[in-house]
C-alpha cells in the first residue's frame, strides 16, 4: 500500500468532509473514491471511512438529541436491525474481491444521489398507526422552531421499516458509509416520520451502525492508524464547516453543484469496477 503523507491526506479529507456535508451526505462517500484513486486498497479505505463516520455522525447527532428532535425510541428499536446488518455487510466485504465493491459503491451512491436530488420529503404523510408500531410506542413530539409550535407525530409500519433498516445496515457495513440517505428514505416513506425527526434520528443510528462495522474491520486488521488520523480529523473539520455553511445557505444551485461532484464519483467508481485492473 502506498504511503500517503499527512500533509496531503489531511487537506484532502477536509475537502471530502466539506463536499459530503454540502451535498447532504456524509464524508465517507467522497473519501472512499478519493483514497482508492490515491492507491489505497478499497477495503482499507472502507475501514478508515467507517471510523470517520462514527466521529461525524456522533458529533452532529449530539446537538439534535439535546434539542429534543431525535426520537430515542425509534433509534433504539431500529438500531437492533442496522447493527445486525452492518456486521453482515462488513463480513461480506472481507470475503469478496474488490471489483464488485466498486460497482456496488457506485450504484448505492447513484441511488442516494437520485433520492437527494429529487427529494422525498414531500411524499411523507401521516396515516393511522398500526397495532405493532403502537405497541412499540413509536411516537413523539418535537419543538419546531420554524413553525413556532410543537409537532406531534405517530410512526407507522415499523414491521416493514425494521427489515429494510437491516438492509440499510448491510450497505453501511459493506461500504463503510453512513448510508444516511437510505435510512432517511425508510423513515420518511415507510414509517412516516417528519423530515426533521427522520434525519436526526438516522444520524444517531448511523453512529452505532458504523461502530458495529468498525469492530469487524478492526479485528481484520484493516484499520491503519497512520491513515486514519488525518482522515478522521480532516473529515470532522470539513463536515463541521460544511454543515455550518449549509444552514445559512438558501441557494439551491450551490448544493446542486456539490451533488454533481458526487454523481461524477459514482460514475467513476462504477467504471473502475467494470474495467477492473484496480
Amino acid at each position, binding site marked *: 500500500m502506498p*504511503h500517503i*503523507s*499527512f*500533509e496531503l491526506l489531511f487537506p484532502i479529507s477536509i475537502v471530502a468532509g466539506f463536499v459530503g456535508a454540502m451535498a447532504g451526505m456524509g464524508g465517507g462517500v467522497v473519501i472512499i473514491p478519493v483514497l482508492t484513486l490515491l492507491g489505497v486498497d478499497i477495503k482499507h479505505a472502507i475501514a478508515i471511512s467507517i*471510523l470517520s463516520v*462514527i*466521529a461525524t455522525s*456522533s*458529533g452532529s*447527532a*449530539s*446537538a*439534535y*438529541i*439535546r*434539542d*429534543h428532535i*431525535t*426520537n*430515542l*425510541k*425509534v433509534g*433504539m*428499536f431500529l*438500531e*437492533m436491525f442496522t*447493527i*445486525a446488518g452492518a*456486521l453482515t455487510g462488513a463480513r461480506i466485504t472481507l470475503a469478496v474481491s474488490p471489483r464488485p465493491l466498486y460497482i456496488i459503491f457506485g450504484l448505492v451512491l447513484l441511488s442516494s444521489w437520485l433520492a437527494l436530488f429529487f427529494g422525498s420529503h414531500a411524499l411523507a404523510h401521516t396515516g393511522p398507526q398500526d397495532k405493532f408500531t403502537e405497541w*412499540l*410506542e413509536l*411516537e*413523539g*413530539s*418535537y*419543538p419546531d422552531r420554524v413553525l413556532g409550535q*410543537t409537532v406531534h407525530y405517530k410512526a407507522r409500519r415499523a414491521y416493514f421499516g425494521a427489515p429494510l433498516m437491516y438492509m440499510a445496515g448491510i450497505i453501511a457495513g459493506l461500504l463503510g458509509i453512513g448510508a444516511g440517505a437510505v435510512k432517511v428514505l425508510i423513515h420518511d416513506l415507510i414509517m412516516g416520520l417528519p423530515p426533521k425527526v427522520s434525519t436526526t434520528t438516522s444520524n444517531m443510528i448511523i*453512529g*452505532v451502525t*458504523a*461502530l*458495529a462495522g*468498525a*469492530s*469487524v474491520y*478492526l*479485528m*481484520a*486488521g484493516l*484499520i*491503519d*492508524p*497512520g491513515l*486514519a*488520523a*488525518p482522515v*478522521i*480529523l480532516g473529515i*470532522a473539520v470539513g463536515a463541521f464547516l460544511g454543515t455550518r455553511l449549509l444552514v445559512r445557505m438558501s441557494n439551491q444551485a450551490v448544493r446542486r453543484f456539490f451533488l454533481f461532484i458526487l454523481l461524477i464519483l459514482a460514475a467513476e467508481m462504477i467504471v473502475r469496477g467494470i474495467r477492473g485492473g484496480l
Partner: protein
Amino acid sequence: MTGDPKIRAGTRTGASASDLGETEQEFDMDAIVGYILLIGVLISLVLVVAALIWRWIDTGTLAFGYKLTGANLFQLVVDEVRLVMHGMLRPRLLLSMGIAMLMLTPFIRVLVSMVYFMAALKNWKYSLFTAIVLLTLTYSLFLR
C-alpha cells in the same frame, strides 16, 4: 400506556418544557445522551491531535507506520492501559487511545440509554431492545 408522561420522556422532555407550557420538570435524558456523544468525540479528536503534535516534535514527521493487527477493542484498551501503567505513553499509544475512545463513544451511549430505560423509566420493552443492541455490540467489540 403512553399516557404516562414518564414513558414519553425519551422523546419529549426538559429544555423544551417551558416552550410547551408544561410544568413537569423531568430528568433530561436527551441532554445526557447528547453530551456523552459530544464529549466522547471531542476527547478522541484531542487525543489524535496530541498524538500528531507529539510525533512531530519527536521526529519531525506526522507519519505513523504501525498497524492494529487482529485485536478486538477490549485487547486494544487493555494493552493501552498496561502501557500507560508502565509509563510508556508514546505518540502511537495516544493515537490508538483516540481510536479506541471514538469506538467507545457510541457504545457508552447505548449503555447509558439502557440504564435509563431500566432504572428511570422502568420500560421493560425498551430495556430489552437496548440490551440486545448492547449485547450484540459487546460481542462484536470485545469477545470475538
